[in-house]
C-alpha cells in the first residue's frame, strides 16, 4: 500500500470533520478534486504534436465531460520533458507526489516507457497517447498504463502493408538511430518480407543531429529500390521528404513516411507533402463527430489543429473521467490499478475516436486509417489535407496479445 503522510493526515482530518459536523459528508462530496498532469514537449521538436494543443484537448475533455456540473474540480497541470527521460521521470514522480491522479500525453518512446515504471511504483493511472513503441503494452506493460492512439506495429502494418499490396515490393529504409526508429524499421521490414517484398538496404543515421539527408537519399536511389521507407518522425521526416523532392526521388520512388502527423504535413506544405501515404487513427475532417469535436476544440488551439496524439489525449482524459465517475469513490482514484481496471471494463465512446475499447494489456483498440495527402488544388479549406484510402479494423490493426509478451496477460 502506498500511503503518504499527507494522505494519512488528510484522511484523518476528513474523518474528524465528518464525525463532528453534521452534513459535512454532503459538502465533501461537492468538492471532488482531481488533478491531471500533461507531460509533453512544450519547447522542442514534438511540441506541435503534443504541447499546448494536448493541454487544449485535455481541457476540452473536462468541459465535454461536464466536470463542473457533476461536482468535480479538475485541475490541469503541465510539465515540459525537454525530450529528456531523466527530466520526464522526475516530473512524473513530482506530479504524482503532488497528488496527480493521471499523467497523460508524453511523446517520445524512451520517456513514454520510463514513465510507465514511475506510474507502476506510485500506483497511479497513466495514459500514454503520444509515444510509438509497441513495447509499451508489450514487455513493459503494467496494470497502471493504457496506450492510446497508435503504435509502431499499427503504423508498419497499415502503411507498409498497403504499399506492398499496391505493388511497392523493393524497399530501402532510412532509420533514425534510436529505439523508436529501429522498432519501426524492423516491424515494417518484417511486414514487407512477409508479404513477399524485399528489403534492399537500411541506413541508420545519427539522431537528433542530422539535418542533411542527401547522402542517404542518393544511396537509396542507387539501390534500385522502388519504395523509400522513412523510419523517423517530426522534423527529420520533413527534412528527408523535402530533400527527396530536391533530388527528384519522388518521381522514381514511392516515399513512405511511416510516422507522419497532420502537423508535419502542415509544416511541409502540400506542395511537398502531396501524394504521401500515411496512417493516423484520427483526422478532424473524417466524419460528423470528428468535425463536431474540432469545432468545439478549435477556439482553444486555433493555429494548430490536433492530430491523433492530441485527440488521443482528449479521448483518454474523457474516458478516465467517466471511469472515475463510475467508480463513485474518490479514495479508489488514488489506486491507479483500480482506475485502469475500471477503464478496461467500460467501452469507450467519444467524438474523436468513436466507439472503441481497451484490451487487457492496456492497448486502446481503435481503427487505423490509411490516408493520402491531397494536392494543393484538392485542398478546399485550411488544414484540409487528407483523403481516406482504407480503414483497418482495430482487431487487425494492433499486435495480437499472444505475440506481445505482456506479463499481465495469462497465456
Amino acid at each position: 500500500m502506498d500511503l503518504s503522510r499527507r494522505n494519512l493526515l488528510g484522511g484523518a482530518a476528513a474523518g474528524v470533520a465528518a464525525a463532528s459536523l453534521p452534513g459535512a459528508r454532503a459538502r465533501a462530496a461537492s468538492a471532488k478534486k482531481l488533478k491531471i498532469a500533461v507531460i509533453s514537449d512544450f519547447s522542442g521538436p514534438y511540441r506541435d504534436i503534443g504541447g499546448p494543443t494536448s493541454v487544449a484537448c485535455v481541457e476540452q475533455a473536462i468541459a465535454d465531460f461536464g466536470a463542473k456540473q457533476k461536482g468535480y474540480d479538475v485541475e490541469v497541470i503541465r510539465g515540459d520533458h525537454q525530450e529528456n527521460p531523466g527530466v520526464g521521470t522526475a516530473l512524473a514522480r513530482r506530479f504524482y507526489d503532488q497528488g496527480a491522479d493521471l499523467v497523460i500525453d508524453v511523446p517520445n518512446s524512451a520517456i513514454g516507457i520510463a514513465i510507465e515504471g514511475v506510474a507502476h511504483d506510485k500506483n497511479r493511472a497513466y495514459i500514454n497517447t503520444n509515444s510509438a513503441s509497441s513495447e509499451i503494452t508489450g514487455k513493459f506493460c503494467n496494470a497502471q498504463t493504457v496506450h492510446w492512439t497508435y503504435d509502431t506495429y499499427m503504423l508498419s502494418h497499415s502503411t507498409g502493408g498497403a504499399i506492398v499490396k499496391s505493388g511497392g515490393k523493393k524497399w530501402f529504409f532510412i532509420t533514425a538511430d534510436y529505439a523508436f526508429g529501429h522498432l519501426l524499421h524492423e516491424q515494417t521490414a518484417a511486414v514487407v518480407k512477409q508479404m513477399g517484398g524485399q528489403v534492399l538496404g537500411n541506413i541508420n543515421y545519427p539522431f537528433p543531429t542530422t539535418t542533411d539527408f542527401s547522402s542517404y537519399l542518393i544511396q537509396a536511389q542507387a539501390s534500385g529500390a522502388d519504395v523509400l521507407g522513412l523510419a523517423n518522425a517530426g522534423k527529420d521526416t520533413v527534412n528527408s521528404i523535402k530533400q527527396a523532392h530536391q533530388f527528384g526521388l519522388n518521381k522514381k520512388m514511392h516515399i513512405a513516411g511511416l510516422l507522419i502527423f497532420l502537423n508535419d504535413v502542415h509544416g511541409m506544405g502540400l506542395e511537398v507533402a502531396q501524394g504521401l501515404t500515411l496512417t493516423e487513427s484520427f483526422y478532424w475532417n473524417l466524419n460528423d463527430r470528428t468535425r463536431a469535436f474540432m469545432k468545439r476544440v478549435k477556439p482553444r488551439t486555433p493555429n494548430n489543429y490536433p492530430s491523433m496524439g492530441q485527440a488521443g489525449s482528449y479521448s483518454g482524459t474523457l474516458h478516465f473521467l467517466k471511469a472515475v465517475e463510475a467508480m463513485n469513490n474518490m479514495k479508489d482514484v488514488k489506486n491507479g490499478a483500480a482506475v485502469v481496471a475500471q477503464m478496461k471494463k467500460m467501452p469507450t465512446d467519444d467524438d474523436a475516436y468513436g466507439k472503441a475499447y481497451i484490451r487487457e494489456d492496456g492497448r486502446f483498440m481503435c481503427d487505423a486509417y490509411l490516408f493520402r495527402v491531397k494536392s494543393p488544388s484538392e485542398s478546399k479549406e485550411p488544414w484540409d489535407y487528407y483523403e481516406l484510402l482504407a480503414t483497418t479494423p482495430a482487431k487487425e490493426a494492433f499486435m495480437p496479445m499472444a505475440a506481445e509478451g505482456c506479463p499481465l496477460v495469462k497465456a
Partner: protein
Amino acid sequence: MLMILGKPAPLLFGQLLLGIINGSFYAMLSLGLAIIFGLLNVINFAHGALFMVGAFVTWGLLHYLGIGYWPAMVLAPVMVGAFGLGLERTLIRFTYKLDILYGLLLTFGLALVLQGLFTNAYGSSGVSYSAPDLLSGTLNLGFMYLPVYRGFVVAAAIIICVAVWFVIEKTSLGALLRASTENPALVQAFGVNVPRVIALTFAAGVALAGLAGVLAAPLYSVNPGMGTDLINTVFAVVVIGGMGSIGGAILTGFGLGIIQGFTEVYYPAASSVVVFAVMAVVLLARPAGLFGRAA
C-alpha cells in the same frame, strides 16, 4: 563499374559533391564565428539562432510582404545584421572587458531566448519555403542528379567566403579592423571610432549567419531548432581551423563537409561523431588548430 574501397565510384563522386555542399554551410557559419571571435574575442553561441532567424526572415518576407528570394538575399542579412548591431550595443559590449566565459553565457542565453520566441510564435514543425523557379530542377551530371539550387549554394558560398577573406586579410579596411582589436587605444588616437568599428564587425559577422540562413531556407525545414543542429559542428570547425583564423575556418568547413560526406557512405552511424574525432586528433597534434597561431 569502377569500384573504390567496395563502393561504386559514381556514388563516391556524388558524396564528394554533397560533402562540398554541406561544407559550404559549415564554412559560411564558421566564417562569421571566426570573425567575431578573432576580432572581438567573443564566443558567439547565438550564431546558430541567428542563422535560424535569417531563414525565418526570408520566409517572413515572402509570407507577409510577398518579397521573393532574390531581394531577401540582401534584405534578410541586413535585417539580421541590424538586429545583431542592436544586441551588441545593448548587451554584448558589456562583456568585452570581462572573462570570455561571460560573453559565452550571455550569447548562449540569447540563443535559448530566440529559439523559445520562435517556437512560441511558429511552433516546432516549422514552415516551408521553396527555391526560386530559376534555381529549381535538377542537372544530370552523369554520376548523379544535382539539384540546381545546391550547385548555386556552393557557388554563392565560395564567392562570399573568398570576398570576406579578401576584405579582412588584404584591404586597408581589414587592416583597420585588425588594428582596432590589437591596440584599440592607439587606433582611437588616430581618430577612429573604435567602438563603432567593433559594433559593425559584430553586425557583419551576424549578417553572415543571416545570409547562410537565407541560403538554407529552401534546402531544410525552416524550424526554430535548425540552428542548434548545426552549431556544435560549426564550433568544432572553428576549433579545428584554429580559433579566429578566417582562412582556416573556410578551408576546414569545406574539408569537414567532405570527410562527413564519405563517412555517410562507409559508416553512417558515425557521421555526426567524425567531426569531433577529427577535432580531438587535431587538438592533440596542434593545440592551436590547423591554421591557428600558437598562443
